[in-house]
């Protein structure tokens, strides 16, 4: 494995059909945790399970099609929005899908599919990147601070979309956030990471109330842990 040890003593459960938010001070290893789930990085030890199967036993390419990911920035490919949405599907030259339908799923006008992705606002582009992940019909969606580059209005739209996807189709979502008000709006459950260790998992209300038996969690909720 390359570089320093970033995560240690991680024991996190992500219940099916829920939105689990990963929070923690910067440098806590939140993004690293997400990348260990779809194996963009290889854990030196330990195991990630997907629906009971160790992910190390799943072909990484297959695994990443079953686990979608949305990044801090959209990073769209292709000359049209349609190309961008269907990128993952076309990698295998497999089944056809309707880009317009996928755009509707993320609250965008289907007629946008002919446009150059770069002509869209960053908020729209980010929703296209969600549609691109949905095109592969994933079991789990990883979201790595998906609203950190968006303005307030665009941020709200992505948050609403996140909740909708979860409620409408029961999509399991693991979302990294640095923003407690966002956690309050979208999370079902919260996982706190500090210096690469998981401090615990709580229901959203319990965690945000600060009435938890974990000193670091209390300090984090009160903004004393940066």
């Amino acid at each position: 494995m390359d570089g320093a040890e970033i995560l240690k003593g991680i024991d996190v459960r992500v219940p099916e059909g829920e939105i689990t938010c990963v929070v923690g001070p910067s440098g806590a290893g939140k993004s690293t945790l997400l990348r260990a789930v779809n194996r963009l990085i290889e854990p030196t030890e330990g195991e990630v399970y997907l629906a009971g199967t160790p992910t190390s036993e799943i072909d990484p390419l297959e695994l990443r099609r079953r686990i979608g990911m949305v990044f801090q920035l959209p990073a769209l490919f292709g000359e049209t929005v349609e190309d961008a949405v269907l990128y993952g599907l076309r990698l295998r030259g497999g089944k056809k899908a309707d880009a317009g339908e996928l755009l509707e799923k993320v609250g965008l006008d289907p007629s946008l599919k002919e446009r150059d992705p770069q002509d869209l606002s960053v908020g729209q582009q980010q929703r296209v990147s969600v549609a691109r992940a949905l095109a592969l019909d994933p079991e789990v969606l990883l979201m790595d601070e998906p609203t950190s580059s968006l303005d307030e209005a665009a941020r709200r739209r992505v948050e609403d979309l996140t909740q909708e996807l979860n409620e409408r189709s029961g999509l399991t979502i693991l979302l990294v956030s640095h923003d407690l008000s966002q956690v309050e709006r979208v999370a079902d459950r919260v996982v706190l990471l500090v210096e690469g260790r998981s401090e615990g998992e709580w229901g959203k209300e319990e965690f945000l109330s600060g009435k938890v038996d974990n000193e670091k969690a209390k300090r984090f909720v009160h903004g004393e842990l940066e």
Partner: protein
Amino acid sequence: MGLEGLGTVATALLALGLVAVAVALSLYERLGLQGDIGVAVVRSFVQLTAIGFVIQFVFGLENIGYVALLLAGMVAFGGWTSSRRAEGVPRAFVLATAAIGVAAVVTVGLLLLLQIVPPTARYLIPLGGMVIGNSMNTASLTMSRIRDDVSEQRLKVEAALALGATSRQAVSPILKASLRSAMIPIIDSTKTVGLVFLPGAMAGMIIGGADPLEAVRLQIVVMYMLLGSVSIAAILVGLLSYRSFFTPRHQLRASLLK
């Protein structure tokens, strides 16, 4: 050979007066280049004189084996130079040497096979030198470009991997861009040859008293040979070096990124 040969070369030093112009400009405009110019003048004199004697020596041996040996040495030196410029690319020396070597063997080999040039030291050493020099530059450019772009476009590469792309699929836009930038200079100079400039080989032959049409024939061979060898070197070094930045499980090697 010997002292007489050195005397011949030494008359070139009369052209040092022209270097004085460059030094004067550097001093007058405070470019700070006079040190570099000095090093360049001394190195070029020593290196060219040395290779002149080596080539003359190999000519005297009339043995194609020594020609091959000399060219192999040039390939290794080219690989080494290239790898120094592509710092941070794992196994750059091996990759560059392999790419330059294959480019040289294929192109020069084809010229021999088709009997476009005779198998003599007089042709093989200068032609081989040109192929090796150009392939070396291409290998350096391609490797450094891939190294820089993978770091700069890390997000895009990861986004593609996260959608189930293989390393090759994820790196494909970077690979294309680096191959293009490595090949465009030679394509451009092939387009403008004869209009804007007369290349060194052709100019040299004409000055040396060769028939201009014979000089043109050889120059055409040289241009096509360089196009071929640069393409071979770029593709080989590109396809070999991008792999170093990924694990077999299609993961970026973060420790190699800047």
